[in-house]
Every structure is written in C-alpha cells, then in structure tokens.
C-alpha cells in the first residue's frame, strides 16, 4: 500500500508545482460548481429547473396553472417512495440533462422519456387518489397502458399543467426568474465604480 503511495507521490523538488497544479484544478472545479449553481440541484425549488433556460416553457406554464399553488417540479417529476430513490433518480436525470445541454443536443420540443412518464403517472395517483377511484384508474401504470389497458392521466387532461406543446417558441415572452450575474454584488459595485471613475476621467480630459 505504502509502496503504491510512494510510487505515486512526486519527487520532492516537484511537490510545490504539483500542489499548485492540484490547487488550480480544484479551484476551477469549485468555480464550475459555483457558476453552474450546483448546490441548488439538491433543493426542490422550481427556480433550479430554469437554471437551464430551455426549461422556461415548463416553468412558465406551470406557474400560470393551478398546480403552481400546491406543487413544485419535483412533486411530479421525481419518485417519492423513498429519499434514496428520489435522489438517485434526480442524479441520473440531472446527469443526462446536463450532458444533453452541454453538447447542445436538446430538441426544439422536449418530450418526456419512459422513465419520467412512469414517475409522473405514479405521482398523479399519489396526490389524486380520491379522484382516481371514480374513474377506476388506480391500476393504471405505464406498463398497463403499454399493454393497451387504459390511458395515462394526461392523455385526457392534456392541459394539466403544461399544455400540449412546449418549446421555447411556444411561450415567447414568458417572464421567469433569470439567473443573476455570477459576479457577486460587492465586486460588481467595485468594478462599476472603477468604470465610472474612468469614464469621468476621460470626460474631463475631453
């Protein structure tokens, strides 16, 4: 064990450089966490989902629907059977989304995948148990629907809560909370005053 460690450790005269290189790497990683608003992904705040602006239509349509009064994105879109499953699903989905978004591979109109469909259907039933008993959909899952037994909730309730079509062009002027500038306020203020002072100087010289 010690042998392997010894093997990996750099020669003594290299140590300062290695420490610096690691520091740069870790600093950059910390910066990545900061600009990507990474910590927010642990929360249930719907604002997290508009970190990626392609989610704007979904945020806006949810916000204008009756669901906005009682639910957040996560109430419908992650499993709620146990905390472990919730975060596992979130992480899995999140990494998939991040990959697509980074490679600019997102489609114009986003459609829900099979795994998500399953989760949402279960969550419809989780909250609307009483309503479901009337139309006997309690046995309906993605699987039964795929076998041609019954429909999913939103096959009929198509406007709940997002509506039929969702793309960036479907809600052209939606007002959603935009991410604020990653430059902290105190620094912004400093740089603003420097810029203002510079401007004043040039004005005076004119």
């Amino acid at each position, binding site marked *: 064990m010690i042998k392997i460690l010894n093997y990996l450790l750099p020669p003594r005269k290299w140590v300062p450089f290695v420490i610096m290189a690691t520091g740069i790497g870790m600093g*950059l990683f910390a910066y990545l966490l900061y600009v990507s608003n990474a910590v927010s992904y642990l929360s249930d705040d719907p604002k997290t989902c508009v970190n990626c602006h392609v989610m704007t239509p979904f945020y806006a349509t949810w916000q*204008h629907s009756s669901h906005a*009064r009682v639910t957040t994105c996560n109430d419908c879109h992650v499993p709620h059977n146990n905390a472990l499953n919730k975060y596992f699903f979130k992480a899995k989905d999140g990494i998939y989304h991040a990959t697509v978004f980074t490679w600019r591979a997102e489609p114009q109109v986003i459609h829900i995948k099979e795994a998500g469909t399953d989760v949402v259907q279960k969550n419809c039933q989780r909250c609307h148990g009483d309503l479901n008993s009337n139309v006997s959909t309690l046995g309906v899952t993605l699987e039964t629907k795929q076998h041609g037994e019954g429909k999913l909730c939103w096959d009929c309730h198509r406007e709940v809560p997002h509506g039929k079509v969702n793309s960036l062009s479907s809600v052209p002027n939606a007002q959603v909370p935009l991410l604020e500038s990653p430059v902290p306020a105190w620094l912004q203020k400093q740089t603003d005053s420097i810029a203002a002072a510079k401007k004043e100087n040039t004005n005076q010289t004119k």
Partner: protein
Amino acid sequence: MKSKPWLGWVMFGVTMLAVFMLGLLVNSVMERRTEALFVNKTLAPVGEFESKNEVWGANYPREFQTYYETADTTFASKYGGGKMRDMLHDDPRMVVLWAGYAFSKDYNQGRGHFYALEDIYNTLRTGAPKGPQDGPQPSSCWVCKSPDVPRMMDKLGIDEFYKQTWAALGPEIVNPIGCADCHDSKTMNLKITRPALIEAYKEQGKDITKATHNEMRSLVCAQCHAEYYFDKKSVEGAARVKFPWKNGMTVENMEKYYDDIEFSDFTHALSKAPILKAQHPDYEIHQMGIHGQRGVSCADCHMPYKSEGGQKFTDHKIQSPLNNVANSCQVCHREEEKKLVANVNERQDKIHQIRIELEDQLVKAHLEAKLAWDKGATDAQMKDVLKLIRQAQWRWDFTAASHGGSFHAPLETARVITNGLNKAAEARIGLSKILASLGQTGPIQYPDISTKEKAQKFIGLDMTKEKANKAEFKKTVLPKWLEEAKKK
C-alpha cells in the same frame, strides 16, 4: 520516478488536459447562462420611462393587441363588466349619501383601462378648468391614469409633481394606462412605478423589493386598486396619494388611521358629518377573501394565459373573469360555466341586498340629522350621532366602492356591512331622542329621491350648469391639450 522521468511528463500532461477540459466546461456553462439573457430580447429597444404603448407594442405584439382589446365595452355582468354604467342612475341613494361632494354629480362604473383618460376628461368630478391653474382637482387625479405619470414624476420630481393642478398637466398626460405602468423597460419584469405603494410598504416595515413574482402579479394592480387619500400635510402645497395601511388593511384599522390624523374627505351637506370617502379597496379586500388567502393573484383571474397559434402568452385584456370563465375560473374549478357564474351572482346578489338596506338606513340618518339641525340642535348634542354616521358611511362605502368586494371576500364584506347597519341604527336611535327633545314627535317626511335627477335636485345641484361647463371645456381646452401633446 528517478528511473522513469517520462512518467512525470505524463502526469503533467494529464493534469494540464484535465484543467483545460474543466475550463472548457466552465466556459460552456457560462455561455449557456448568457444565452438565457438573449432568449427574451427586445427588437426595438424601449427607453426608460417610455410612455407610448406603441413603442413597447413593436416588441410584444400579442400582449399589446390584447391590451387594446380593453376598448371592448360590450360585456356587462350583473353588477360590473366593461360596459359604461351610470351608477347614480342605478342607485339614486348615492346622490344623497355624497351630498356636498363631487361624486354626487357624476359616478360611472369604470370601463376598460383603454378609457382611463377619456373617462377622466368626461367626468363632471374633474370640473371644467379654463386655464392651467384653474379647476377643482390636483394633479394627484392623474396618478392612476397613465404611464406618463412615472415619466413626469421622474422629470419633475415626485413632490413637484404632486404640487401641480390637474389642468396644468393636461397636455403631458395623454397615453392611457399601459406597459410602463407595470413593466420594467429593460427586463420586462413587473415593476412598482407609483411611490404610494412603496411608501405604504415602508410604513409597515416591509420591503417591497422582496416581493415574490406571484405577489408582484397582484401588487402592480394594488398600486391603483387600493384605498387611498390625498395627504396635504406632509409636503407644503402638495396633495400626495397615500395609503392608510399603517395599522393594517381592515376597515377598522384604516378608520383608526384616519381618526388619528383627524381626516375627512368632506363634510356632508345635509347632516354635517365628517365623511370618509372610500376609494376602491380592491386589493385589501381581495387579500381577505379565500382566493387571496390561497395565493391566487389578480393576474390569475383577470389576465389568464391565452393560446394563439400554439403560442401561450398572458392575456392583457384585463377584464371581468365572468367574460372569460374558461381560462380563468375553470383552470381550477371544473364546474360548468353556467354554474360558476351563478355562484358568483349569488354571492353578489346577497351582498347587494344587505348593502341597499344599509344605504336606506344611512339616507334616513342624514335626512334626520338635517332636520335636527334645522330645528336648532347644538354641536354638543349632535357630536356622537355624527361620529356614528361617519362610521356607518365609511363601512358602506368601503364595500360599495370595491366593485369586486362582494365576490373577492363575501364574508368580510358582509361583516363590514352588518357592522355598518348597527352603527346606522345607533345613530338613528340617538337622532330620534334629539328630535323628540326638539319637539318632533310625528312621522318624518322623507323627500322623493327615486331617480338620479330628483335626488340631485333635492341636494341642490345645478346639473345643467355643470354639464354646460363641461361641454365648453371639451370644446375649447381639451383639444388644445391634445394638440400640444401631439407636437411633443
């Protein structure tokens, strides 16, 4: 390591590559964040304090077009809607209740925002000023009528704005309520543009900049659809629009505020009671109803989503939800439209019924007080009675002036009216004792006020003269204002 120096170079290379890739990733995140800022970019930049709605409309055609649909006056609900209604004609009791105040001359149901200016030109309440320093009203009357107001407040300064007369600003305030009243010109976010609401928040120890987006969807409306008065004390020569919210928003809290500063809007011409004229406490009453308590905002019902060619946007035709049940009520309530409208009407009918009862009592109280004065009652004798009349009328007006109140918060509205009925009854018992002591024992003769004209004649208004003056104003002064505005 010493035997294999190349291994060091490999490690160096790997680290460099990792940091480089990490840098690329950070850069990509930054780029995509910036992209979000450009998703909703204006095509034709809108300047700060731009008051011409058409300039904004170039960027947001759908919102703009639906806003101009507030010009539609075809819809009338049972008690409201966009149709012009002569409220004094519908209910001549109001003429007597407002005797001695301009509201007894002319009071119409507000039409759409599009008519904000046209209606304020037309109303007899603004009088017929002949020159810039003439006329009965201060510039405060413009405050809720136009996006030119924030522009002029910025130009003149807030206090200086409030020091003007209504007529002095006539050539400046020419665009009806519009975009700049509620939106920030750069970000299009909702924005509070009227100082009164910001000051009212401060007075309550709250910070309006901390309001959530959903709260803002009501607060932009609350800038105007709220109870206010003209504060002439805090700045010399200015009539500042101020909200009496310091103690809270219930009818009692606001009354306490007014009592503390010994404020009254007018002294009643018949009873001589110091009367409070409620404006339109729509926001306050909405907050006390179930929709307000559950966080439903004004915009949710009055400006719901609209779909057009697969695009969704906020319908800026601000109107009665009863004319748009499918998009407003039925988003939450899955009942039939007919049933929902019937539910609303039922609440309004019942509140209307008890409100009229209170009006009847109040009219009688005013007339009996006049009789007592005529028979030689003293100030000391009348003091308590006048206070009760003031309280009863404040409660009546609070519920009558908020058109939506009977729906927004039926329970609170009913409570306030009941309270008012009790005050009016107490006042009339007091009056009967005074009248008895002055020798009035038989039944009292009440005048015929069954129509607006009869009632106005009874309180001594010369309506032919009022109307002639207005016609003159519209023929001579108004065209000059509009002409001057066009040149700018």
